C-alpha cells in the first residue's frame, strides 16, 4: 500500500438512539485513529457499541455527533454517490451473518460489487476467480449459499468484500456463527490480507483471535476503555 499514514480518524464520535422513553447512548465520544496496514481487534462486552462503531466506520451508519475523516476527508460532507463509491471500492465489509444473496451463486455474489463498479466482463471474471481461489473456493464458484457450509459462506463474503481491492476490511464478528476450525481459517485469511498491506479491523468475542491482532481496542459502555498495541498501551 501507499504509505503508513492515517486512513481513518474518528474524534468525538457519539451515537444516540431515541427509542421512545429511553435514550440509548450507544457511543459516547470515540477518538480513534487507524493507520494503513493495521490489524485491529475490537472487543468488549455485548452492547458496548462495537457494531455501532463498525457501521459508522464502514459508512453504513451516520454518527449523531463527532467527526469522521476518511483519508483526511470528512465523511459527513460526502454525497450519496461518493459514499456509494467508498462502500464499493475503499471498504470491504464482512457481516456476522454473511448477508449473501441467497439465490445467487458464489461467483455471482462476488460479482455484485464489480457490477456496481461497472467493471468490464474480462476483468470481472479474472478478479472473481482470483478472489475465490484466495479464499480456497475456486471449486465452489457455481454453488449457492445453501450448498455451502457456514465457513465457506463467510469465505465467499470475504472474496466479495475483496472484489474491488479495498484498502480496509471491516468485519463484525466474522467468526461469531462459525466453529473454531472455520473461525481459524477466516483469521488466517485476514492475516494474509494484512501481510499484503491491507488494513483489517475485526470485532470479536474470541480472545484467542484478538490476540493474533496487532492492536486491541476494548470498548465499554460506548467509550474506549483501553487501546493496546502488542500488549503496550497506546
Amino acid at each position: 500500500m501507499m504509505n503508513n499514514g492515517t486512513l481513518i480518524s474518528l474524534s468525538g464520535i457519539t451515537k444516540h438512539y431515541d427509542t421512545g422513553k429511553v435514550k440509548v447512548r450507544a457511543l459516547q465520544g470515540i477518538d480513534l485513529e487507524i493507520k494503513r496496514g493495521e490489524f485491529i481487534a475490537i472487543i468488549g462486552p455485548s452492547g458496548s457499541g462495537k457494531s455501532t462503531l463498525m457501521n459508522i466506520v464502514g459508512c453504513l451508519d451516520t454518527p449523531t455527533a463527532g467527526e469522521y475523516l476518511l483519508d483526511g476527508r470528512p465523511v459527513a460532507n460526502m454525497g450519496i454517490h461518493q459514499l456509494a463509491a467508498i462502500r464499493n471500492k475503499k471498504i470491504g465489509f464482512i457481516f456476522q451473518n454473511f448477508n449473501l444473496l441467497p439465490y445467487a451463486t458464489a461467483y455471482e455474489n462476488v460479482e455484485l460489487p464489480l457490477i456496481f463498479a461497472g467493471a468490464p466482463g474480462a476483468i470481472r471474471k479474472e478478479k472473481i476467480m482470483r478472489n475465490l481461489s484466495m479464499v480456497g473456493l475456486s471449486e465452489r464458484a457455481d454453488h449457492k449459499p445453501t450448498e455451502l457450509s457456514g465457513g465457506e459462506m463467510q469465505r465467499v463474503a470475504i472474496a466479495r468484500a475483496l472484489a474491488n481491492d479495498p484498502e480496509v476490511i471491516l468485519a463484525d464478528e466474522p467468526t461469531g456463527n462459525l466453529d473454531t476450525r472455520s473461525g481459524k481459517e477466516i483469521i488466517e485469511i485476514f492475516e494474509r490480507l494484512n501481510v499484503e498491506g491491507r488494513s483489517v479491523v475485526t470485532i470479536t468475542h474470541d480472545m484467542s483471535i484478538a490476540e493474533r491482532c496487532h492492536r486491541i481496542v476494548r470498548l465499554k459502555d460506548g467509550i474506549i476503555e483501553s487501546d493496546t498495541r502488542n500488549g503496550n498501551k497506546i
Partner: protein
Amino acid sequence: MKLITYKFILFIRLLLREFKAQKLRMSLTVAAIAWGTISVTLLMAFTVGLQQQMRKASSGLGGRIMILWGGQTSKVFQGLPPGRRIHLHPEDVDLLKKRIPEIEQISEEYLRWGVTLDYNGKQINKLVSGVAPSFKDMRSHYAQMGGRFINKIDYEEKKRVIFLGTRVCEELFGNDDPVGKRILVNSIPFTVIGVMVDKLQNSNYHGPDENYTIIPATTFVAIFGDPWLDNIVFSMKEGVDSDLVEQELFRVMGGKYRFDPTDSPALWTWDLVKNKEIERKIFLGIVIFMWFIGGMTLLIAGVGVANIMYVAVRERTREIGTKIALGAQRKHIIWQFLTEALSIAFVGGLIGISFSILICSLFRALPMEGALELLSEPTVNVPVAFITVGTLAVIGLFSGIFPARKAASVDPVEALRYE
C-alpha cells in the same frame, strides 16, 4: 454512449438472475396482472358485444316505426255513443300518408292464422300476412341471397308469390332451396320468392318474424276477401317527435271515424321509437353499471398486484441493504424495480390480452342460439385493455418503487436490520 450500453447489459444480467431466482413471486405477479386484465377486458368485451347485439335485436322488429290497430271508443262524441268498434280500412293507408307528412313509409297488414302450406304433400299450418313492399325496410324483412321480398309489381298485379320466415322454410323445405319452388297456400299455388335473413328480434306483435309468411296485400284480399285491415305499420322521418305524430293520427282518424281525438282506446298504437328510447336508457344504465364493475375489478386486481410488490420489497429490504453496503447506488436499486415491474406488466398484459382475444374469438366461433345469441359477439376494446394493463403496471410500479426507494435512501444499517 458505449459505457451506458455496457452498463445496461450488466444491469440486464443482474435482473435476469433475480428473475430466475424469484420465479414464484414473478409468476404470481404476472398471473395477477394477466388475471386482472382478462377480467376487466372480458367484462368490457361482453358489455360492448351485448350492447351491439341488443341494438341489433331491438331493430329486429323495425326501425323508427309505429303500429296502429283499431280499438273501441270510450267517449260520447257528436251525439254518438261510446263503445263503438273502430275498424281500419284499406283507404286509411292513403289517408294517413296524405295527411301526416311526418310519415315516411306506410303499409297495411292483413293477417290470417292457421293457413295450410303444402309442399309436395308436406303440410304445415302457419300465419300468413298480406303487406305492401314498403314493409321490407320498415320491419327488416330482408331476403337471403338468391331471394327477394315482394315488390311493387307483385303488389300491383296481385301476384301469387310468397316470402317465408326462416323457421317456416326449415319446416317445409328442410335443406332444399325453396326459392322458385311452388307451394300450395290453402290449395292455391304460390311461388316462393325469398326467405328472410336470420335476425335478432327481441319483441313482436304476432310471433317472431321467422315463423310466418308474407304475400302481397292485394293478393291477400283477392284470396281471403278481408274487408278490414289487421293493422297499419308506418315509419317516421328522422327527428320527428312520435308523440306529435300520434296526436295527429288520432285527429285524422277521429275526423274520419268520428271519435274524440283524446279518446285513447279508440285506436291502439305501439310506438317503437319511444320504446327504443326507453330501451336505450335502460341499457345505458346497464353499461354504466358494467363500467363501474370493471373499475372495481381493476381496483381489486390493483390491490393484489400492489400487495405482491409491497411484500416483495419488505422481503427484499435486507437485500437492498446488502447491495447498498456493497456499493450499489440508489439508481441500481430503483432501476431494478422499475424494469422488473415493467417486464412483469408487459408479460402479464400480453398474456391477459391474448387470452381475452382468444376467449372472445371462441365465443364468436361457437354457435349460439336464442338468448345466448346476445353473448355471441364479444369485442375486445383495445383502449380498455391497454388502460387496464397500464393501470396495473403503474400500481405495481409505485407499490414496488416507493418502498424500494425508501429502503435505498436510509442508512444501510437500517435496511440490513430489517426483519
